[in-house]
């Protein structure tokens, strides 16, 4: 039997972190955007244990202020693309600057310094990832996906998809379904 899941990554992570913190007997509060305030004093040993536990779930505790800001930028982008039913129409630069209360120029420079990429590229990549996910579940057709992700046309989405992945959306869909078949046989 094959069951298809649809999951809210954000919610799942909050639940995991809450459970682990509770288990360690720490009191905490969520400040939003991946920031958590621990009310008690935390020993180095305990902190290390928490870091190790979180790694099992693919959750990383971030060390430097720059890293943390880059992660916040990524989180805002991912949240914008995944949680909104339809992408906000306002310019993403304005959206990011408002959400993080910093100038876009600053955010954009920092992001390029710290990653191999630019904010623009990261957004395109994430939008194409979202498109892939929607294509794989076969719940929506390309026209609907283009609308959801704020592309002016199906052609625009197809072009960006091809530029990012080197494949057309339909070739991608064919490969994924052949891969599924192949994994069943294996």
């Amino acid at each position, binding site marked *: 039997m094959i069951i298809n899941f649809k999951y809210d990554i954000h919610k799942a992570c909050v639940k995991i972190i809450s459970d682990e913190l509770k288990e360690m007997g720490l009191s905490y509060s969520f400040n939003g955007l991946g920031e958590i305030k621990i009310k008690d004093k935390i020993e180095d040993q305990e902190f290390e244990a928490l870091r190790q536990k979180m790694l099992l779930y693919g959750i990383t505790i971030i060390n430097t202020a720059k890293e943390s800001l880059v992660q916040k930028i990524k989180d805002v982008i991912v949240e914008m693309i995944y949680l909104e039913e339809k992408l906000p129409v306002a310019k993403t630069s304005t959206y990011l600057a408002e959400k993080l209360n910093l100038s876009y120029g600053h955010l954009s420079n920092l992001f390029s*310094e*710290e*990653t191999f990429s630019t904010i623009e590229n990261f957004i395109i990549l994430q939008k194409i990832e979202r498109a892939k996910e929607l294509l794989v579940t076969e719940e929506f057709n390309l026209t609907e996906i283009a609308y959801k992700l704020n592309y002016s046309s199906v052609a625009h989405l197809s072009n960006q998809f091809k530029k*990012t992945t*080197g*494949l057309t959306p339909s070739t991608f869909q064919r490969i994924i379904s052949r891969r599924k078949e*192949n994994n069943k046989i294996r």
Partner: protein
Amino acid sequence: MNQSKIHVLLADDDEDDRLFFRDAINQLNLKTIVHTVEDGEELMVWLRDEGNPQPHVVFLDLNMPKKGGIECLEEIKSCPKLKDLSVAIYSTSSSQKDIEDSFVLGANIYIKKPNDFNELKKALSKVISMNWQFCTSGLNKESFILNV
């Protein structure tokens, strides 16, 4: 830039191709460490040796003596410890069938070996930066497919 280095592993039996690849990557100004092996068997031994760092991406030539690229790909993808590695097929073939079949078997990246040095640099830069995003931004590796 993040301090961490990017580990790259190339399996190719052609010495010139290995050199060409190394030169191109070194000119990209990314913090990469390149390791090369000469055939598929050597590759699998290298990957299974726990003393070696897990590469962020493995480049496989399709035609190699002893063990070919496709065989290595299948072995990597069916090994629980290795299956999450990003695998790039690095081949002279540009046939649509070879490309699709590699992806179906689990390859993440397909690069047609370019003849021109600058083209190679461009292709490698795209592959490495995209792969980095997939390794560091929690993106879904299962749908990571890139054809250059």
